[in-house]
């Protein structure tokens, strides 16, 4: 895949200054480079030395992709019910409440509408830090509504996935979110609305086996773990070590399941370019 236009910087100096605490340093998990947090954000949370993509969430992706100040979130207050009154070592409701407190998020997905290079897009993004980005009723409903909004307004759909799979604590309800979202995407296809699916580290389990793999165009961030079964389970099943790079973005592209891999710094420009052809 060749991209002929250089990507534009798309975060204004103004927004860069906001919410960045001074004097904080992080270490790259890949190469060990010590990076100032401000520098990291400027580099869209990728390593300045080795291009390692740090795991970020909906807030960061909104700032990366959307034209300044154009994104409107919907269903922000939607939170998980507890359909099974589930308890393992702790109550599911307690787990939800403490995660909401710790992350400032209401569940593992955010959805809304905003502009990408001037064009309206219906958008949903998962947050891995909310119970491993697990898909329960709230994620399924928000994804479904993002699809419905795209159909209704005849605007493209973009979903960013980052998920360990289904939300166990909602049992069969979480499983059915796969069918629910996929059925909505069938409708989207019939209406010929474009859908770009973006896979980030990690995208596994029920999320991969539903909307994440159903994009017209599937874009992955470099070296993201993408698969159905987790590597540990596969290793147990086959009883030997997994090959280098197995279930990484490059492996999926090689096997025909990802259209192309985009560096986060180019993501917005590349999405805009695809939309040029899709609309």
């Amino acid at each position, binding site marked *: 895949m060749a991209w002929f236009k250089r990507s534009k910087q798309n975060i204004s100096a103004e927004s860069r200054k906001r919410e960045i605490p001074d004097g904080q340093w992080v270490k790259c998990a890949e190469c060990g480079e010590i990076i100032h947090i401000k520098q990291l954000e400027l580099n869209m949370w990728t390593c300045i030395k080795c291009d390692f993509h740090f795991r970020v969430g909906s807030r960061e992706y909104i700032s990366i992709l959307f034209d300044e100040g154009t994104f409107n979130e919907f269903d922000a207050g939607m939170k998980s019910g507890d359909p099974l009154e589930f308890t393992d*070592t702790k109550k599911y409701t307690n787990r939800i409440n403490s995660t909401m407190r710790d992350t400032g998020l209401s569940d593992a997905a955010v959805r809304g509408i905003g502009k990408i290079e001037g064009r309206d897009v219906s958008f949903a993004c998962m947050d891995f830090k909310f119970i491993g980005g697990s898909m329960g009723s709230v994620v399924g409903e928000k994804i479904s509504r993002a699809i419905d909004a795209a159909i209704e307004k005849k605007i493209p759909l973009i979903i960013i996935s980052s998920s360990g799979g289904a939300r166990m604590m909602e*049992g069969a309800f979480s499983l059915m979110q*796969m*069918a629910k979202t996929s059925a909505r995407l069938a409708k989207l296809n019939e209406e010929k609305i474009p859908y770009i699916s973006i896979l980030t580290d990690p995208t596994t389990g029920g999320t*991969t086996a539903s909307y994440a793999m159903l994009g017209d165009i599937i874009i992955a961030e470099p070296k993201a773990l993408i698969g159905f*079964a987790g590597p540990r389970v*596969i290793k147990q099943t086959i009883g030997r070590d997994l090959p280098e790079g197995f279930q990484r973005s490059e492996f999926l592209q090689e096997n025909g399941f990802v259209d192309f891999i985009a560096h986060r710094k180019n993501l917005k420009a590349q999405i805009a370019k695809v939309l040029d052809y899709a609309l």
Partner: protein
Amino acid sequence: MAKYILDFEKPILELENKVAEMKKLEDNLDIRDEISNLEEKVIQLKKSIYDNLTRWQRVQLARHPERPYTLDYIFMMTDDFVELHGDRQFGDDKAVIGGFCTIDEHKIMLIGQQKGRDTKQNVYRNFGMMNPEGYRKALRLMKLAEKYNKPIVTFIDTPGAYPGLEAEQRGQAEAIARNLMEMSRLKVPIIVVIIGEGDSGGALGMGVGDRILMLQNTWYSVISPESCSSILWRSWEYKEQAAEALKLSAPDLLEQGIIDRIVPEPLGGAHKDHKLMAAILKTVLKEELALFVKADPKKFLEKRIKKFGKMGMFIE
């Protein structure tokens, strides 16, 4: 075949053996009353055990190695079966069987996950765990059914989609996702029956339909009790608690509004009487198929999407 006895089946079996022994002596001794007393006790014991099955016990019944599988039902229920193989792309997945068949007045496409009876068969059937080519084979046959305007019946019985290296390489996730999307739009009726285990995406990959049925002693959830135990309790020891917490039994799923109907099993489970089980299922399937004989595809398609669309529970 060696008899496979579950723990909670043992007291019943012991009592039944005793009755059998006494019956042998009946000619020489006057013990008719004792025998009928004991027989009454067997009935009472069965009732008390099978009316109060825990969820974990139902999981065990669902996995009972003598339970009828897809091929058994095909053999016992259908007048004719034209098996069709392969996905036209990679190969023929033996963990799933499909083809046209006739059930009395109904000509249908039947596709079912297939486990093996013994080690050799299980290796051949991959323990009922499908690879991507299995889901693609199922989809090919379903599209064929749509072309020929035949209703589809799927039988679900799997411990999960196969978590193997090649399965990932060939796109297990994509294959399942594709089926979910395509099945939601097929213009022929789809009746799904959980006949054993309904483990997660591997089951759902053939499980989108207009009517979802579960046999009485089967389970259907997002994860097996063992895996759930190992993740949430960090030990394999909490499978009973996990089964309870997941609320994965047929009555649970009916209450949750995820399935439409429970198919009763013979007392003690489907494995106790294959013929009776097949007869019950055949009757039920004919009732279900009759619902769609003159149905308008537009109407049931709309209902199918709505049905899945409303699944979930959240607070706004």
